[in-house]
Structures are given as C-alpha cells and as structure tokens.
C-alpha cells in the first residue's frame, strides 16, 4: 500500500509540472501580448512594460522564475487585471464559493442517484426501471447551460420561489438553483452506475447466501448488496471531480457567482497570464491529489483490489 502511494505520488508530481509547463508554453507561444490592445503602444512604454514584467529576459529565465515561485513557494504571482491582488488571494476568496456548490451538488447527486439507481435495479425491467433510466439519460443529454436558465425562468421569473442569481453566503436560498443545475448530470450518471453495479451484485452468490440464511430484504440490500454495488460509483468519483470543475464553470457563469471557474474564464478572456497559470496549476494539483485519495479509498473498501 505504502509503495503504491509513493509510486503514485512519483507520477503525480511530474504530471503537475507538465500541466503547468503546458499552460505556460501555450501562453508564451500564443500570438500577441497581454498588454497589446487596439492602439499600438509607443516603444518606450512597451519597453517599460516588458522590463517591469521581466519579459525582456530570455525565455528559460522567465520559465524558471515562474516555476520556482509556484513549486518552491506556492506563490502564483500577481494578477494583471485585478490591480494589486495576488493570485493566491483571488483563489482563497473564490475557492469557498466553488467548493460549496460542488460539494452540495455532489452530495445531492449521491443521495438521489443511489436511491433511484438501487430501486431501478431491484425492480429490473419494470416500468419504474425504464422510466427512471430514460429520465437519467435525459439528464445526461440536457446541457446544464440550457437547464439552468430554464429553471430560473420557471422558479424565479414565473413562480418567484427562489432568487435567480448572485452569491449570498453559505446557507441561503440563492444556492438552490445552482446546486440543482449542477447536480442533475451527476444524479443521472450515479443512478446509471448504481443500477449497473447493483444488478451485477444482486446476481452473485453471497447475496443468495444472505437471502438463504433468512435475512430480511432490507438487510440484504442495505448491508450486503449496496456495499458491493456502489464500487462503480466510488471509482466514478475521480472523473466526476474533473467534470464537477467544468460544471461549476458554467453554473458560476449562469448564476453570476464569484467562484474559481468564473475567475478562470474572465482571466482567459482578459489574458491575465499569472491568474490563468495559477488557477490551472491549482486545479491540476487538487484534481490529481483527489484522484490519489479516491484510489486509496477504493483499495480500503474493496479487499479484492491489490495495488503492487
């Protein structure tokens, strides 16, 4: 186990370096500059800017400086557009917003998805099974940027039940629509995964044994079947985290929430180079470490899994 963790970390660290290098390279290779606008700058002004941001130095010195401050000191630099704000402070401020929405959405998706998926598996080939799986497929097929505004139209602009947008702190009614919009896709995926996993487990020998020794159906399902049936859901958590990131980008744009995704899109549109690199690096580090955690959890939960 320890060897597995060490080996995975040995792959994870170079991967993070590759992601940062790739982003840095894309930005440096791209035509134009962050300071070039509609009007051409005078040579003196341009030289001053280049000197201030260290662009007059050779590329390997710029690269080395960026990498060292990110890896060595976890300092992502200063934003070019949000005057005087460090990238770290922007991440610190916007991360709680994204994390709140993401965690709530995933929790909601787990609860609903596992319930629906288990019932569908227990009543395989019934009307309920077909209906819930068709609805799940619909949930996968409707883009969240179409779903979100439609929910706003119905629940905010027509029924006046919940506010349509804006961030208003953690427990607040403003969270209902963003969380719902974000979680629909995961609900659908988790319901499908749970159904598939449960169907496989329900046909296995140990479930027959549990039934044969006279356990109630409730005990069989909850204590025995769910345990094995949920393995696909757990292994889905890794990819889900990545999807969750892109999902929050859309949801934050629709509902005007000051999260990480919103800042990332703004930075990409504004060519705010340190902010782009900072957010990409932060996301890559989080994602890879979370993936590692999921793999370790998987090994603990399923004794059949052995990592060399």
């Amino acid at each position, binding site marked *: 186990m320890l060897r597995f963790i060490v080996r995975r970390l040995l792959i994870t660290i170079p991967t993070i370096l590759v992601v940062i290098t790739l982003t840095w390279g894309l930005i440096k290779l*791209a035509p134009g500059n962050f300071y070039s606008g509609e009007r051409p700058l005078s040579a003196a002004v341009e030289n001053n800017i280049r000197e201030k941001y260290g662009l007059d130095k050779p590329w390997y010195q710029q690269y080395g400086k960026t990498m060292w401050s990110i890896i060595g000191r976890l300092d992502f630099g200063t934003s070019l557009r949000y005057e005087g704000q460090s990238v770290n402070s922007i991440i610190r401020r916007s991360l709680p917003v994204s994390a709140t929405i993401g965690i709530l959405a995933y929790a909601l998706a787990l609860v609903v998805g596992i319930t629906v998926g288990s019932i569908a598996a227990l009543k395989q080939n019934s009307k309920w099974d077909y209906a819930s799986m068709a609805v799940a*497929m619909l949930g996968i*097929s409707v883009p969240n940027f179409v779903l979100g505004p439609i929910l706003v*139209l119905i629940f905010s*602009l027509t029924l006046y039940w919940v506010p349509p947008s804006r961030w208003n702190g953690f427990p607040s009614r403003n969270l209902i629509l963003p969380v719902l919009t974000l979680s629909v896709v995961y609900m659908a995926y988790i319901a499908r995964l749970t159904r598939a996993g449960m169907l496989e487990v329900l046909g296995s020998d140990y479930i027959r044994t549990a039934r044969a020794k006279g356990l109630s159906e409730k005990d069989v399902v909850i204590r025995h079947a769910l345990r094995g049936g949920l393995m696909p859901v757990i292994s889905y958590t890794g990819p889900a985290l990545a999807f969750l*990131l892109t999902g929050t980008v859309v949801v934050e744009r629709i509902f005007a929430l000051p999260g990480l995704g919103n800042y990332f899109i703004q930075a990409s549109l504004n*060519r705010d180079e340190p902010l782009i690199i900072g957010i*990409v690096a932060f996301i890559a580090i989080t994602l890879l470490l979370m993936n590692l955690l999921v793999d370790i959890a998987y090994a603990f939960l399923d004794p059949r899994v052995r990592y060399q």
Partner: protein
Amino acid sequence: MTTEKKTEPDELIHIPPEMAIAEADVRSEEAGEFVRGSSLWRDAWRRLLKNKLAVFGLVFVIIITVASIVGPTLIKRTFGFTPDYIPSHDLRLTKSFPPFTGPDGEFSWAHPMGTDNAGRDQLARVLQGGQISLFVGIIATLVSLLIGVTYGAIAGYFGGRLDDVMMRIVDVLYSLPYIILVIVLLSMFRSQTPRGQLILLFVALGSVSWLTMARIVRGQVLSLKNQEFVLAARATGVSGPRIIFRHLVPNTLGPVIVYATLTIPQIMLTEAFLSFLGFGVQAPLASWGSLATEGIANISVFPWQLICPGVTMALTLFSLNFLGDGLRDALDPQMRTV
C-alpha cells in the same frame, strides 16, 4: 517475391468470422435444412430493432441529420428566406415573434420556432446550426478515432515495455483537467476567421477525447493477437503494420462503432459548452450551443430563443446516447456495463 504474390495469400487467409458464418449459412440451405444461420451484423441489427428507445434514437438522428442538410434549402424554396434573411421592410416591426406567429400576431406556418431578435427565422437557423453541431461532433470523433485506434492497436500489438509506457501515458492524460487546457488553447490561439476557429475546435476536441478509444482498442487487440488468423498472416510473411491495420483493426469494429456513437454526443456537448463560454463557434457561423447562448440573454422575454435550439440539441444528444447504448447491447451483449 512480387507484390502480387505478397498480397494474395494475405487476402485469402483473412476471412472475417461473419463471412465464414454466412458461408456456412448458404451450405446448410443447400442441404435442404431449415436452419437459418445469421451473421454477427444481422444478429446485432435484429437485437437493435427490438430495443424501442434505440430505434427511436436511430430514427430521430436520421431525421435531424437529413433536416439539417436539406432543411435550410427547403425553407428557402417554400417561404423564400435564408437563415440569414433579416426582414427590412419596417425596422420598427422587427422583433422576436413566438413560434407559429406571423408579423401581425396571427397564427402562421412561416416560423414554427418563431424568430430571433433580428427577425430571422429560428427554424432555419436551428437547422443550419445543426449542420455545424453535427459536423463538429462527427469530424472531432473521426480525429479521436484516428488517434485512439492507431495508438491502442500499436500498444496492444507490440505489448511489453512499449505497451507499459504508452498506457501509463494514457493514465496520466486521463487525470488532467483537459477541458481547462482546451479553454486555455482556444482563448490564446483565438482565430481571426470563423473557419480557422472551427478547425482549431476539431483539433482541440479530437485530441483530448481519444483516450478511452485507445484503451478499448488495445484491450481488443490484446485478446485477438494470439488467435490463429494472426499467426497465419504472420507465417505468410505479412508485415507488422499490415497485420495491425488489415487484420486486427477490422475485427475491433464492433466496440469501436459503439464507442464512436457515444463520443459524438459527448463532443457535441463539449462544443456547446465551449460556445456558451465564448470560445467555440464564432459568428456568422452558429451551432446549437451558440444559438442557445444567444437565447439566454432574452430568457425572460423571448424564452423560445433558448428553448427551441436547446430542446433540439437535447433531443439529438438523447437519441445519440440511446442509439449508442442500444448498439452496445446489440453488438456485444456481454459488455453491458453502465
């Protein structure tokens, strides 16, 4: 050895399993028995037809594809306007009409999906947008197919250390936040022309969605490469690349078709997502994603501007997903996961 002699045995030996069964089929009929053998594909087709949702998917995909291709021309013939036609008679009258409503507010067949802010016909625009959306989905899937099949087949066929390294690379790429990288790529290299942007989109989307395809093909090739027909091909002196592409790859067709069908809606969804964020298809070209995005701005006043392209796209993706699921069940009943 001449080239003629080299290709001949190769052609003779490679009898795909479905052809072999079809031959047996003919023989048994000649013998007067009432046994009808059936080929892999015919069998799969029959199974597919039993799956109602998959058939619905297939029919809808065909309808929407044909409608996207001929629709704009047909509308021009019938009503006389192109997707870009902006009525200019009286600018004060130009506003967004609800579905099935004419300029006078009465029922009319002219605009079944209403019009947009400039008075352009929504149906014509949605059908034209379908051309772009489907085109992006299909071309990017082909790009991912090309990379994924080649990569997976090479890794599977040569095996050993090469396979280890190649698959480890895939593992690493799997864990990357690739959408984020695609956004960086598209925003940094934003093309000045809509066509350039479209090509950038194909490359970006295709080059990040080949990973699963590579894994599937590798798995298939691993299980096929030790079979007799490969040994026979090798014994007759067929070269490595030729064995891979003439003998192994055609036999992985089933899973590849299934996965390609499921990749198209994924890529279309990603394209829509990128268009929503402003990195996708550029005006004057429009995809379902960019049409829906335009509609979001007017959601409270003209909801049909979002709902019409949005629902069309959702139904298409729904159909493609169900078709892919149905194909998987039909082509490989044992592969029924998720």
